[in-house]
């Protein structure tokens, strides 16, 4: 769940940009230039308001959108005769379908003549405990077993196993591609440069855009769900593996070379073992990303917990949705802790006493025998195959969640409405009209100007390209509406992120209390809390902003906390000795020294907010999010939805490059 490692580039590129920074002719400071750009923008806005805004009505299309539609139709029309389908996509589909069905037969679905899967709950819990213990330690093994038993108590055993089956298959397929690609990107700078834009694209393109085409290519079924998940979940593993390979000290590799190791030997015996820990963190991130896709994949009939959430949403049944969402959270926490423990196990084992190591092998052996017995039992006997009880705990959770929601809705909606109206009318509406009512070239010029000031000429060129392409999508006005909401949400994310992050970074107790909540907020499907938010704030842009803040704030808090904690203790002590009070230490020492962490937090906060644009479209945010949802729902709007997805990617790339370049400058 620590996404901080996802963007490893800044550290390496500092060296490249450093010379440019030594440019001596800077007497005008950066804030002054930003201010100047804003003043010019505001003046021209007042004069030119409402001209050349490039608006497009909800049902209108441009030539590009129609072209996308035709493309989509023609692919669909010759699906059954095209050899590409017959011999390529169908084969891929068969392989993946068989893989998923195999895992499902094992743990979740009736297989063959059996009314139940091959391995029942007792066997699965046993395997989980054993594997967690073998790769991690006994503490995570207990946690894992308790977590899995909890699914049964919730009355969601089969749904959870379906989700697990799909997630494991998707992670497996993702890693088969991601690890080799990651190694390649780690070894070759050129390949890394080629693949990075593709990874950005895969991570920021809204899934809604490619769900419908995927079912055309790979049919409705597990294969499409797995591939949709892989597209989203593979990039972190590729990036982090590459980062791990790059972080191996060059001297070590040179030493291996000088001893006459071949390329393969130095890869297999030096690079991979030394990068192992980082690679496992990549696997961890891929698992988390795969779990984030559970609810969306349910839209194309992927079985499991996501379906429960989506179906409960149709009847606004928050309790049931929350219960299923909680199961996803528990699964994410279990898988996260197990993979994290496995990444640190080797070191811990080296540090622990020899006695334990001597015992480990026989203990593992007898554990394996025990697991085989459990599997046999759960295969044979009903009590071990089907989880006993009727999911009473789940009913309690459902009822509790329902009554909490009802209380909140009854008692808070007056206050929340006033709050929403103040913020929308006072901040969001004026800010948005600055973007949407200015002529497009003015906004574009301002954005490019900002990019040049904050990130340098290279970033300015990237931004100019993005602005040009945004105009090309035909959705300029919608993109500006989304941009305004995104920026407001990001400001809120940073306000909360810094406040809570500093608190968490300064106190280990707070950290320990807050962290599980943050983990839960990050993996709880947003669909679960949309209904209560809708009740509080109505279908408005504000609701979308609140949902995005809830989703993005944990990342910002975690990165800020890590940054604050990384400030050397001696520095803080020196400041204390010099008579600084707590407030001064925070504002004059810790925050300035954690500046690059703060920029990274802003970067990640923005990207996370942007990934909620489509969810926002479901609760009244309109603009690009709505365009994407509409494109997914109506064939005539497909092209427009695709264009809106591209616009979101462009906004993401633009933000990412500007904040990263700014981060490089501040840390230099």
């Amino acid at each position, binding site marked *: 769940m620590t996404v901080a490692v996802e963007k490893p580039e800044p550290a390496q590129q500092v060296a490249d940009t450093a010379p440019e920074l030594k440019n001596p002719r800077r007497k005008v400071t950066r804030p002054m230039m930003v201010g100047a750009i804003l003043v010019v923008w505001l003046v021209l806005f007042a004069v030119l308001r409402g001209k050349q805004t490039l608006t497009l009505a909800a049902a209108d299309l441009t030539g590009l959108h129609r072209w996308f539609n035709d493309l989509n139709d023609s692919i669909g*029309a010759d699906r059954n005769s095209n050899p590409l389908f017959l011999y390529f996509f169908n084969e891929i589909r068969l392989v993946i379908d068989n893989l998923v069905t195999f895992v499902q037969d094992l743990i979740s679905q009736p297989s063959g003549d059996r*009314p139940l899967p091959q391995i029942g709950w007792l066997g699965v819990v046993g395997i989980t405990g054993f594997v967690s213990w073998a790769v991690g330690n006994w503490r995570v093994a207990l946690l894992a077993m308790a977590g899995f038993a909890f699914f049964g108590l919730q009355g969601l055993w089969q749904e959870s196993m379906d989700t697990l089956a799909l997630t494991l298959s998707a992670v497996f397929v993702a890693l088969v591609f991601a690890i080799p690609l990651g190694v390649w990107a780690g070894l070759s700078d050129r390949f890394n440069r080629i693949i990075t834009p593709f990874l950005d694209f895969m991570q920021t393109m809204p899934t809604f855009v490619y769900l*419908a085409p995927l079912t055309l290519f790979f049919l409705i079924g597990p294969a499409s769900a797995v591939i949709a998940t892989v597209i989203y979940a593979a990039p972190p593993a590729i990036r982090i593996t590459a980062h791990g390979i790059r972080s191996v000290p060059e001297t070590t590799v040179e030493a291996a070379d000088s001893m006459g190791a071949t390329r393969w030997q130095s890869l297999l015996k030096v690079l991979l073992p030394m990068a192992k820990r980082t690679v496992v963190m990549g696997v961890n991130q891929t698992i988390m990303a795969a779990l984030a896709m559970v609810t969306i994949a349910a839209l194309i009939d992927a079985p499991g917990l996501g379906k429960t959430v989506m179906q409960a949403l149709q*009847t*606004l049944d928050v309790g049931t949705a929350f219960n299923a969402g909680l199961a996803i959270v528990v699964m994410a926490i279990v898988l996260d802790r197990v993979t994290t423990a496995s990444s640190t196990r080797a070191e811990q084992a080296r540090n622990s006493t020899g006695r334990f190591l001597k015992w480990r092998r026989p203990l593992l052996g007898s554990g394996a025998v025990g697991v085989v017995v459990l599997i046999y039992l759960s295969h044979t*006997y009903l009590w071990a195959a089907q989880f006993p009880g009727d999911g009473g705990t789940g009913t309690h959770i459902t009822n509790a969640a329902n009554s909490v929601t009802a209380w909140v809705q009854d008692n808070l909606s007056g206050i929340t409405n006033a709050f929403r109206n103040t913020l929308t009318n006072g901040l969001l509406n004026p800010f948005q009209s600055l973007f949407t009512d200015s002529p497009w070239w003015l906004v574009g010029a301002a954005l490019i100007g900002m990019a040049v000031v904050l990130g340098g000429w290279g970033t300015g060129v990237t931004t100019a390209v993005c602005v040009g392409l945004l105009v090309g999508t035909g959705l300029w006005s919608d993109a500006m509406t989304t941009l305004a909401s995104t920026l407001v949400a990001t400001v809120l994310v940073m306000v909360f992120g810094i406040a809570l992050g500093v608190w968490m970074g300064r106190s280990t107790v707070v950290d320990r209390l807050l962290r599980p909540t943050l983990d839960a907020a990050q993996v709880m499907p947003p669909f679960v809390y949309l209904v209560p938010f809708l009740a509080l704030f109505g279908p408005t842009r504000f609701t979308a902003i609140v949902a995005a803040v809830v989703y993005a704030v944990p990342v910002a808090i975690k990165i800020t906390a890590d940054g604050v904690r990384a400030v050397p203790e001696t520095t803080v002590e020196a400041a204390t000795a010099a008579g600084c009070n707590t407030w001064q230490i925070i504002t004059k020492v810790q925050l300035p020294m954690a500046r690059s962490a703060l920029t990274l937090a802003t970067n990640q906060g923005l990207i996370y907010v942007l990934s909620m644009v489509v969810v926002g479209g479901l*609760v009244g945010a309109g603009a690009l999010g709505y365009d994407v949802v*509409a494109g*997914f729902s*109506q064939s005539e709007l497909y092209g427009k939805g695709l264009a809106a997805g591209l616009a979101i990617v462009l906004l993401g790339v633009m933000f990412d490059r500007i904040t990263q370049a700014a981060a490089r400058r501040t840390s230099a």
Partner: protein
Amino acid sequence: MARHWRTGAAGLAVLGLTLTACGGAKVGDTSSGSGSSSGSSAKCGTFNLAVNPWVGYEADAAVVAYIAQHQLGCTVNKKDLKEEIAWQGFGTGEVDAVLENWGHDDLKKKYITGQKTAVEAGQTGNKGIIGWYVPPWLAKAHPDILNYKNLNKYASEFKTSESGGKGQLLDGDPSYVTNDAALVKNLKLDFKVVYAGSETALIQAFRTAEKNKQWVIGYFYEPQWFLSEVALKKVALPAYTTGCDAVASKIACDYPVYDLDKIVSAKFAKSGSPAYNLVKNFNWTNEDQNTVAKYIAQDKLSDDAAAKKWVDANQAKVDAWLK
């Protein structure tokens, strides 16, 4: 150390044996019970039923699937899909039937007349009504609001933070048929269409509005389970006449009453499956659907339990479908 190892293994073996001894019912034993009903069913085979995401459809699907499974012995695969993807599934063989289609002339053109992968299978008997609705308290407090001509009088009451100074007309899920933007323009109403983006958002808006006596007007439709919780009132628009909705941008009349119909894949229609016969004959009233939808949405019954409850009480209707 070898001794420990042996003791451990022996202990586990004993444990295993004990557990086995008190084992109880075996997995295979139960399968004969539930499997027997599917014994007579070699003919039907699998039946892939699309389930579009609204509760009324879920009710249709629950009943049809229940009958297909228990009275015809089919293996029913329900697939949760949006309309567009479900229709796409006709061509790929992944979907056999769509049970409640709302117009969708665009999809009919593409898949029935164009690709010829789908065919119509008659009406469901349900009448689909689309229109603008207000919460009951509002209709009671200001009865004249139920005529569109008076809407401008109240436009300022419907203002929200999203509607840019005009009255807000709330629209829901983008997959549903809507002419609202054109209607607002052509009826010269001082309103702006605001897209809530999902049915969930729309229902929650009406629910809050009724509870807190707020002013809300929005797109809604019948049959819908929510109407039995909050009986929204429909606003009268200029009456529908044949052809008044021919040009999308010029529409200034109410929505037609949709005769909801069933669509099946061309292959399924020719298959001779008893499930096709069932789908073709399936026909019930709005009340029937509302009853089952209420079992699912408000009484929280599972699809199967809801269907069983209705089928047990209406076997005569079911028998007519099975002829």
